[in-house]
């Protein structure tokens, strides 16, 4: 068995999934090949660390936010949820693969709302877990367009203010409007009481009063006698 064949069986070997014949063949290769032995050793170490790692609990509110953001993303209304930093696990060096965002690779262009979710401070299991770097989850959620609460109130208030201004303007115009020129708006005898009358000496005055239904008027005629 050469190294290429051995590498294809290493994962199954680490998981104990190989047959006894395959196990014997691979064991014989590992006794001879230090490089493959190292690979197996690394895989077993990773598996051990992963088995001992407990994911920080996620609050209900976090699930709600993630669920809403994912729903918005699926509906094309929002930006994807991003986990900028994955939990760091001692013994595993971060690689570009592990730093990659879970959902989307591209960060959103606008300034995001960043919410920090600290992991529990101490873990009771194992020395490696005790010395673990505090995990931090950064969730980026972009403000959703088209869902701005109370915005309609601003429109209603604006419309009401405009209506108020227009109504007051109309009221002002109405109160200042002249009475219409019509026969029923011409003053009749009951509408007018002459209290004092003086005229130029060159004119004669005719006071039309007539009967009750007649329009009252004062008419002047040039006095022919005055010359």
């Amino acid at each position: 068995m050469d190294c290429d064949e051995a590498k294809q069986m290493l994962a199954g070997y680490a998981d104990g999934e190989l047959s006894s014949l395959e196990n014997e063949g691979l064991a014989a290769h590992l006794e001879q090949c230090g490089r493959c032995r190292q690979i197996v050793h690394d895989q077993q170490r990773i598996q051990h660390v992963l088995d001992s790692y407990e994911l920080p609990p996620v609050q209900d509110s976090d699930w709600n936010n993630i669920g809403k953001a994912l729903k918005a993303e699926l509906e094309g209304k929002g930006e994807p949820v991003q986990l900028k930093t994955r939990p760091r696990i001692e013994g595993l060096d971060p690689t570009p693969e592990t730093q990659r965002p879970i959902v989307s690779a591209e960060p959103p262009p606008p300034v995001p709302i960043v919410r920090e979710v600290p992991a529990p401070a101490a873990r009771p299991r194992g020395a490696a877990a005790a010395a673990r770097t505090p995990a931090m989850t950064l969730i980026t959620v972009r403000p959703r367009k088209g869902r701005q609460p109370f915005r309609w109130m601003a429109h209603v208030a604006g419309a009401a203010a405009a209506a108020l201004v227009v109504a007051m303007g109309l009221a002002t115009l109405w109160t200042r409007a002249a009475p219409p020129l019509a026969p029923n708006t011409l003053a009749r005898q009951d509408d007018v009481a002459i209290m004092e009358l003086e005229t130029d000496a060159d004119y004669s005055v005719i006071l039309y009063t007539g009967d009750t239904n007649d329009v009252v008027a004062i008419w002047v005629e040039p006095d022919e006698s005055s010359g």
Partner: protein
Amino acid sequence: MILAVAALLTLSGATRAATETADSRQSLNVTIIGIHATKEAKPFIDPALKAISAELRKRAVGYNSFRLLVNLTRTVAIGKTWECPMKEDYARQVQPIKSEADKATIRLLWIRYVVSGRKRKAQEKEKLTLSIRKGKYFLSGGWKLKKGVLLGAIAVQ
């Protein structure tokens, strides 16, 4: 929010009504109309005067054409005078004296400006004090112009 706007409108209306009541005791909306009556081969009645053309013909006997010269409305305080120029140096002055619920007392003047030397002097052609029901037009006139006569109507509100 809607309730707040409604309350604001009600308050505004109430305030305005109170203000108007107070204002109506201190000032009047006065409308002055000037009419030029002439005798023409082809009669002409200004569209604005069509409704009262029959009454105008009854008072300005012999005239068949009526043109609107002035139609102005101003708010005039009690005791103040508003002068409205008409035609050929004629003008009309109005001075509200008293305002009541449905009528008002006003002093009306027909004046004519004449040039005497370097001075322009106002001659009082007619002085009239009357009480009139608000919203009614009072007709007066007959002042001789180069062509035709001048008459006017005045109303207060």
